[in-house]
């Protein structure tokens, strides 16, 4: 690690520094006298240095008091050269111990990388901070093979989902375990409402300041994570935070400050030609008409004449005119056919692009660190203030972290860290929600101005843009339908306030090489207090509502271990570990919802006339005992064996507890063969290793309380309006949960085989790392569906089987390395798939998330999380080639029943089918860094191939005639849709895909979902940056200034917002876009100074 840091430091060091007072020149060669190009030459204890040129020469100006140079080059031993009193040195580097660097593995154990029989990949601090991402998860995109990161929402403070090697668990959380400084850390995403509505939510790793990260190690497979047991089955992200430097007296201050600007990337293609109405006739806001199926806007003009034959008439509570006689819904007047009004042409209002603003984020951080021979400390402070692209949205984060170590003797060391984070978010409603920002915004016809004549910036604070004096809403459906976006950002905001404390205390005592004790106690407490306001007049809660949730999470993770290692003889090295772990997870959600506000303008629970509340706990404990033995032979072959016995409270039956039923055992083995050590002449190959491993991991149920059936206080309703809940009229009620408990559950077990090779060439300037793996999961505990006639909807059942396989490639190269210019490039390739082999008996699919028209499911024989929904009828449906839930072969069948309202349209298949696969075919991250003198530049191309999204936004907007698609098809010449009639002959029924089509089973809100499944793949410029290294001067140890961009270029076939989105947030059901908040692109300017 240190070497990498030094290497980076070198790149930025200026050749001629103004303060240097002495010049040292020299050459660097190997022991055969061949010059070494690009060797690092550094003044010891400073960042002053240079790189040798093509002849191995260097020339360096050093402070007059400089004593030593440190000369290093990958693949050779590092050498220190005394320069006191000399100005020319010739350095001969010996072929060194290749790869003497240790890597951090499970439980924070540092191991020689070549001893590893499994894949581990490291991402360093520079890669993290250079990304400009404020969420550490986002910073990892493209930096390692085997990972997939998806940001869920463009809302500032919205969370991201990370997967390592795709999905591992069928219904449990598939995100990897996050371990910070050896202790398990909370990365939950708490949802206040259903997964398809409400506001965006943060993932808790966002509470970590990325500037505090020293390195991130990605432990990918089961063998790598075996020591973490169940929790590590989904992979581990091992984060090491920065500590003060040891050795010598040092005191450093780092200050960095950045400002970022965010804008939305792209938006669905909307039509801007047709006005509100139906069947080609204009219908104004006062009619409540929902669609944009009216006439061309260009055929309309304004009128203010109340006697005009088309003058609006109030209907019900929908007014037409203000008390002063002016038209209520547009200051220009109401719309009438061209030629009959006042001659002022109808406006085309832009209710979308104008609405969004440039979000600004300010991020300041300060770190003070230092250390002596026996103690170190580091204190860091950070303050992030970000405003969103949506007015009034914001995300503020403040962090304080203190880490210190004490090593009073060489046998004993101790240390600890504490991190406090305060995060405050203001969020808007999104998704499938009548208060959802984009839902109302995108549906608004171009003939209606949500801002009521004000500029977008003014309308934000102008009440009359979105509300009448009588508190009725001013929106395009006459006050009904959906909230006006300007109303939403003023009256339907959500607030989160997070307080988070996490850290650890550790101590190690080493009696001898062969025996040492270590203990690491970790804690993590998070309190997330949420309040969502709905002012009176909200379209979601007409009488107003205050929804309060408080999430409290507490994690205690304690590890105790005994370790030792040494040589048995000259050839065999042995190391072992015995350990125990106790883990306790406690989560509690307390909810109070208040409805029926007494008067507007006071959004507090005390203003509510009716209250409902609930409390929801989720507690479990696990206990694990584990051991590992590693034997190494002559630095050539390494064998590692491990085993673990776990006890999991989630398997316990509370009514008849039996400890043995909660316990389970699983082993692993891995082998590393460094074959380059066995060869005398390796040619250009500088290092070669083969890896192989086999590992099992057991897990308990994904949720506690699965072993017994319970009664719940039900919410009553049918999904066509808000449910009602107890108490009702002062009476409380309970009903048996629809989820049947099962006290027969046993642990699920997955078995992984992994093979890999690590090949390096040309003195490690070129490296290729390949891994293939396969995981079989058996007895997966599924929330299996039951026919409702059984009296229940679901039961927990050991029944699922899944096979995951994948290939990962990492290519590292250093194509250009000269004293003036250096280029490092890394390509990470990830391809994984998880096939659902078996679900519960009689169950072909299992719901994960989404809607009834299209949802993500586990479908037997399909990839994990297949999008499942209505399909067109195919000719081969119902025949022998119809393999149940996949789309059958043959052309689409056309409805040729002349009595049908859908005559000439595609016929619908009564069976719902697997209509999309949200998992990408592959992911490639191409990461490049260039340095030239004091300048450095980088870019990261992120290519995600495939991965379907169900474009629910396009689906709904086709119904409303708002998408450009509907503007094009409503005027097409009558044409037969491609397909066959019921007798098999080619379709000859010409149709126009107008309002009747898009409002049928084939359009928005219709049964068929397949026509809105789109390829959500992309190629994007994920990161690009340029920075200048500020040389040190007497009062400052240097620094940097840089500009970077995220997501500045995006290429995708998806017709909607940026396809990096997920309606259901960070959960397992991915691949849904339903009025999601659009993603953002950013430009960040950053200054960093060291003192």
């Amino acid at each position: 690690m240190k070497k990498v840091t030094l290497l980076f430091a070198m790149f930025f060091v200026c050749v001629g520094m103004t303060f240097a007072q002495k010049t040292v020149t020299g050459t660097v060669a190997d022991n055969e006298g061949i010059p070494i190009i690009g060797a690092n030459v550094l003044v010891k204890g400073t960042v002053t240095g240079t790189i040798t040129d093509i002849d191995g020469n260097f020339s360096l100006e050093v402070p007059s008091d400089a004593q030593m140079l440190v000369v290093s080059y990958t693949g050779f031993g590092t050498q220190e050269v005394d320069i006191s009193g000399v100005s020319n040195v010739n350095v001969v580097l010996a072929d060194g111990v290749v790869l003497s660097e240790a890597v951090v593995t499970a439980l924070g154990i540092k191991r020689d990388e070549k001893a590893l029989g499994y894949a581990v990949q490291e991402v360093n601090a520079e890669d993290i901070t250079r990304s400009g991402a404020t969420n550490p998860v986002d910073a990892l995109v493209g930096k390692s093979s085997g990972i997939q990161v998806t940001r869920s929402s463009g809302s500032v403070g919205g969370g991201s989902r990370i997967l390592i090697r795709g999905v591992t668990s069928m219904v449990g959380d598939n995100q990897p375990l996050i371990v910070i400084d050896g202790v398990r850390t909370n990365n939950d995403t708490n949802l206040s409402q259903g997964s398809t509505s409400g506001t965006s939510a943060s993932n808790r790793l966002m509470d970590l300041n990325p500037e505090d990260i020293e390195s991130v190690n990605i432990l990918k497979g089961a063998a790598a994570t075996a020591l973490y047991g169940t929790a590590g089955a989904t992979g581990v992200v091992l984060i090491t935070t920065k500590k003060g430097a040891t050795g010598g007296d040092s005191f450093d201050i780092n200050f960095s400050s950045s400002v970022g600007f965010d804008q939305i990337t792209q938006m669905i293609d909307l039509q801007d030609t047709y006005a509100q109405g139906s069947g080609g006739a204009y219908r104004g806001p006062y009619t409540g008409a929902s669609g944009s199926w009216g006439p061309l806007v260009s055929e309309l003009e304004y009128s203010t004449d109340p006697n005009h034959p088309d003058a609006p008439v109030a209907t019900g509570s929908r007014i037409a005119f203000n008390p002063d006689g002016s038209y209520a819904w547009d200051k220009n007047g109401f719309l009438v056919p061209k030629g009959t009004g006042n001659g002022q042409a109808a406006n085309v209002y832009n209710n979308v692009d104008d609405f969004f603003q440039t979000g600004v984020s300010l991020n300041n951080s300060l770190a003070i660190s230092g250390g002596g021979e026996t103690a170190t400390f580091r204190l860091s402070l950070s303050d992030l203030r970000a405003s969103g692209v949506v007015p009034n949205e914001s995300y503020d984060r403040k962090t304080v972290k203190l880490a210190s170590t004490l090593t009073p003797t060489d046998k004993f060391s101790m240390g600890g860290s504490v991190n406090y984070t305060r995060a405050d978010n203001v969020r808007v409603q999104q998704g499938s929600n009548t208060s959802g920002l984009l839902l109302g915004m995108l549906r608004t016809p171009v003939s209606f101005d949500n801002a009521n004549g004000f500029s977008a910036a003014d309308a934000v604070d102008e009440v009359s843009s979105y509300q009448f004096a009588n508190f009725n809403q001013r929106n395009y459906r006459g006050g009904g339908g959906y909230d006006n976006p300007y109303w939403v950002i003023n009256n339907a905001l959500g607030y989160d306030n997070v307080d988070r404390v996490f850290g650890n205390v550790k101590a190690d005592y080493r009696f001898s090489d062969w025996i040492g004790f270590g203990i690491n106690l970790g804690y993590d407490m998070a309190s997330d207090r949420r309040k969502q306001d709905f002012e009176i007049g909200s379209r979601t809660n007409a009488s107003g509502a205050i929804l309060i949730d408080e999430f409290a999470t507490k994690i205690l993770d304690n590890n105790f271990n005994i370790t030792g290692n040494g040589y048995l003889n000259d050839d065999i090295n042995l190391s072992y570990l015995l350990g125990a772990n106790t883990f306790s997870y406690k989560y509690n959600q307390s909810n109070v919802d208040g409805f029926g506000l007494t008067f507007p303008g006071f959004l507090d629970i005390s203003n509510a006339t009716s209250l409902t509340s609930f409390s929801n706990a989720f507690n479990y404990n696990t206990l694990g005992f584990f051991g590992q033995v590693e034997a190494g032979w002559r630095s050539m072959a390494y064998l590692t064996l491990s085993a673990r016995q776990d006890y999991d409270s989630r398997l316990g039956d509370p009514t008849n507890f039996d400890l043995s039923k909660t316990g389970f055992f699983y082993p692993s083995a891995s082998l590393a063969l460094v074959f380059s050590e066995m060869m005398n002449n390796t040619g250009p190959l500088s290092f070669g290793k083969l890896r192989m491993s086999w590992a099992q991991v057991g897990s308990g149920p994904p949720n506690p309380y699965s072993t017994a059936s319970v009664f719940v206080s039900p919410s009553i309703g049918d999904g066509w309006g808000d449910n009602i809940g107890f108490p009702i009229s002062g009476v409380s009620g309970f009903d048996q949960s629809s989820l049947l408990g099962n006290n027969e559950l046993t642990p699920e077990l997955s078995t992984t085989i992994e093979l890999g090779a690590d090949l390096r060439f040309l003195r490690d300037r070129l490296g290729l790392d390949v891994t293939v793996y396969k995981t079989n999961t058996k007895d997966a505990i599924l929330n299996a569906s039951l026919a409702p006639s059984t009296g229940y909807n679901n039961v927990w059942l050991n029944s699922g089987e899944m096979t995951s396989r994948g290939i990962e490639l990492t290519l590292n190269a250093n194509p250009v390395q000269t004293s003036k210019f250096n280029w490092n490039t890394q390509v990470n390739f990830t391809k994984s798939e998880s096939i659902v082999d078996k679900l519960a008996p009689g169950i072909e699919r299992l719901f994960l998330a989404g809607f009834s028209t299209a949802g993500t499911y586990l479908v037997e024989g399909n990839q994990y999380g297949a999008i499942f929904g209505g399909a067109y009828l195919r000719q081969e449906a119902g025949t022998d080639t119809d393999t149940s839930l996949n789309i059958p072969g043959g052309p689409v069948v056309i409805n040729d029943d002349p009595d049908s309202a859908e005559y000439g349209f595609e016929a619908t298949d009564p069976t719902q089918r697997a209509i999309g696969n949200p998992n990408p075919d592959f992911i490639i991250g191409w990461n490049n860094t260039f340095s030239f003198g004091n300048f450095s530049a980088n870019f990261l191309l992120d290519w995600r191939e495939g991965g379907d999204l169900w474009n629910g936004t396009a689906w709904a907007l086709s119904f409303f005639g708002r998408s450009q698609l509907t503007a094009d098809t409503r005027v097409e010449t009558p044409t037969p849709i491609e397909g066959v009639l019921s007798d098999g002959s080619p379709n000859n029924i010409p149709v126009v895909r107008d309002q009747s089509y898009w409002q049928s089973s084939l359009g928005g809100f219709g049964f068929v979902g397949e026509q809105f499944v789109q390829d959500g793949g992309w190629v994007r410029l994920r990161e690009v940056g340029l920075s200048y290294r500020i040389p040190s001067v007497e009062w400052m140890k240097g620094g940097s200034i840089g500009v970077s961009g995220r997501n500045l270029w995006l290429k995708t076939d998806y017709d909607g917002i940026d396809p990096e989105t997920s309606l259901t947030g960070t959960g397992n059901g991915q691949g849904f876009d339903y009025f999601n908040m659009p993603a953002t692109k950013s430009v960040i300017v950053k200054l960093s100074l060291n003192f």
Partner: protein
Amino acid sequence: MKNITKFCLMFLMVFTFASCENFIGGDINKDPNNPTSVPVSAQMPALTIALADNYGGMFSRFCSMLTQQVEGVARQWTSFNQYTGLAPNRFDSAWNNHYENTVNEIKIARTTAVDGGLNYYVGILDITEAFALMMATDVWDDMPYSEAFNGIATSSPAFDSQASIYDVIYTRLDSGLSSLAGAPGPATPGGDDVIYGGNTALWAKAAHAIKARGLLHQDNYSGAMAEAEMSFDSPSENMAFQYPDANNAGGWYRFNRDRTGDIEFHPTLRGIMTALQDTNRLKEIDQIFITDHTYMVPDFNQELITYREMQFVIAECAFRTGDSEKAHAAYLEGIKASFGRMGAAGYDEYIAQSDVDPGAGNLTLEQIMTQKYIAMFLQPEVYSDYRRTNIPELEPVSGSNVPVRWDYSSNEYLFNSNLTEGSVNMFTDRVGWNR
């Protein structure tokens, strides 16, 4: 040093193992927020309101739409109105509320009540179950019952014929009546009976009303008339759930609030009432379906079975059995109760029209059924009446038939192997009593 090591190790091991049982066992896996058993008085309000909410929710919406009292005009409801959108998944919530939230709850509560000797609770639960089974089988025909409610033990319950379900209904009504007639047992229902507040005499009348409705479906006119006459003596005795307020509002109010514009008043019903100059009642119900609607109010009285329905049962049965005087009197009483329910004035002027009241001798079945159709606005029973009598005559919205039954739930198709997709034709497969 070695001894210290050993001691530390032993201490840790013993400590860890001793606390293991407590750390993993104890109450850690017991859900602190949800009980594993509850008394019947805690279960009864939930299952009863679930029943009433289903009846006044999906049942009322679909039945009133199919009988053209209301019209789906926007979003998904456009396609439902056209019948094309009535895919199995559209029946999921009604089916699920019936099985999971109503009848399964009744089964569990009844076991608790029987074990505790709570006879009045047993009686009320029996009558409630009879009502629930009838409303369901009237639209779904054959349904799982005898093998249902067993959880995973019977994951694919067999379908019972409608006739056998009707047998269960009558058995439940009879046993319910006898339970209510006996000793109450250690506890009696009160506020936890959200229908009658523990008034067992009214429950007995409701049992007779339900029986009358069932016998009428089966064309047993004399039986139905006898039961109807043993039922309610005034509208105040209706079997109904009273929603409290906007926070826990009636189904139609919630629909109109949250799905504004999806459903509106139907021109067919408007035409029928206009032709009869039924302006006062029409004014009360023919309004835009928004929260300001004066009939679909938040504190809606969700009727399950009513005095006015019984009057029309008597009218129809008396008419069919030749007692025109009795038919005439009950007919007028039914109309009068309807004016009362809708809060409309002008009953006397209305029946003064010969179209409405042609006198006992000239009264027709069409007039009786048309007035019942109007009087039972939003009551799902209208759909049964229409299928039995074809009155009023309705023009199918699309195709050549009005659906004569509902399809099963998509979840039942998926998870019950006794049901194959596409086995139901909603336009031709009439339910048992309708064949």
